[in-house]
């Protein structure tokens, strides 16, 4: 009987070793800034918004301030702006699938160092060379200059650390050939289908911005109804979203836990932007 109690105690103490989830304190020791050139449209923004011409070549600069006591290396990557599935413009995709309506991939117009070294307690700048394509374009082409600390390939995770903070910067790089943008936003519903994300199941509406302009202040209301019923299911509303020019994203409905029973369903989706200035309405079966 004593042996049995001892075994139970041992097993209990072993299973306590489990999901220890401490965090790791982290302070950031660098910052970056765009050096805005004379063809910058608005000098008050913190990102590049350049009025350019076909075939134009230009060098722009970014400053990096290293506050650390040792020299640091930083990775630099210029990526096309895309729309993330939460309705945010993201700049972290190195090899994106290009939308057919995109005038060109801004990443292909930029030549820049991949790694920049900055001495301790110093501010340095690096150059990015732009070469604008010969074919004129309307609206804007948008990308981002990403800067993050360079990580060694064999860098090991610290033992016992479970949430490790990392810091990164992105500077917008917006190109236009007209000072005033007259392109109006548009929205298309490409398809609606089940989608799995992080082991959760959603019904997703794939939305498409086919124009070379950002959809600002984007609001979506949606639900599905089973054929022969009036009950609204997976009712989902999101606002304050943004869509990158010439991009798509999955508008996920529900919280990923609710399953639909077999049958035919109809999606109802209403969207608007800029406080209702532009409105769209879609229905589609799935």
């Amino acid at each position: 009987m004593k042996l049995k109690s001892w075994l139970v105690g041992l097993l209990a103490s072993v299973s306590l070793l489990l999901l220890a989830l401490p965090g790791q304190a982290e302070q950031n020791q660098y910052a970056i800034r765009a050096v805005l050139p004379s063809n910058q449209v608005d000098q008050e923004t913190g990102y590049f918004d350049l009025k350019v011409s076909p075939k134009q070549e230009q060098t722009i600069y970014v400053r990096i301030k290293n506050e650390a006591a040792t020299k640091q290396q930083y990775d630099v990557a210029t990526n096309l702006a895309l729309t993330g599935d939460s309705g945010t413009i993201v700049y972290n995709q190195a090899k994106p699938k290009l939308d057919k309506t995109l005038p060109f991939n801004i990443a292909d117009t930029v030549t820049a160092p991949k790694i920049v070294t900055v001495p301790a307690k110093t501010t340095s700048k690096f150059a990015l060379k732009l070469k604008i394509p010969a074919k004129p374009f309307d609206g804007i082409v948008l990308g981002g200059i990403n800067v993050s600390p360079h990580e060694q390939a064999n860098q090991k995770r610290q033992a016992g650390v479970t949430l490790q903070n990392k810091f990164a910067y992105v500077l917008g790089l917006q190109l236009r050939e007209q000072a005033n943008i007259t392109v109006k936003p548009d929205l298309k519903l490409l398809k609606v289908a089940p989608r799995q994300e992080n082991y959760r199941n959603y019904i997703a509406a794939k939305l498409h911005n086919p124009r070379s302009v950002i959809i600002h202040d984007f609001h979506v209301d949606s639900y599905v109804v089973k054929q022969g019923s009036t009950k609204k299911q997976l009712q989902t509303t999101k606002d304050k979203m943004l869509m990158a020019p010439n991009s798509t994203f999955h508008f996920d409905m529900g919280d990923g836990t609710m399953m639909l029973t077999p049958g035919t369903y109809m999606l109802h989706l209403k969207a608007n932007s800029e406080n209702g200035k532009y409105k769209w309405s879609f229905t589609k079966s799935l």
Partner: protein
Amino acid sequence: MKKLGFLVAIGVLSLLMPARVKAATFDSSVTNGSAGKSQATVEFTDDASQMLQLAAAPDITFPSQFADGRSRQGLQASKLTDYLTIFNNAGVSAWSVQVAASGFYNATGGELKGAQLHIAQGSMLSSNPDDNPGMLILDDILAQKVSPNATPQSIVTATNSTYREWYLYLKPSQVSLDLPETNVVAGNYSADLTWTIAATPK
């Protein structure tokens, strides 16, 4: 004489102008009515302190759990230290902070499949809440709830901010973790949280 006055005016103005170019050289002609050529060199310095900086991010601690195979929904953080801190000395009016999370992995590469972090909508403060509790600023700053995954999501968005310091205040109860029902191997599971400050069109 007029030329001299003009040059002096240029020199004074150059001292007053906000510097953007590292160095500029003026090749000017003459002074005091005599023929000749002189060169005036003006050094423009770029103020390296004028940066938009993501200074710190919260350190999140969760309590230890038994690996009993049962799911956990809304497991609250036990401790949060530090605040998401933004120093805006560049006067950038529109910026955002995005957060992305990797999967949770143990030392041998085993994944805690389906683990999902949630961060509720916090409060934006214009001074460090440890120094000045109760200071609450809401104008033109939008703090949003997020469930970070591999794709960055905006946790804070400023469209017309004029303040120089911002702190995102969150309570431990506002940060939670969902753990799926799984045969999880006991040990430490680690995920990267990448905080990105974006000076981009809004």
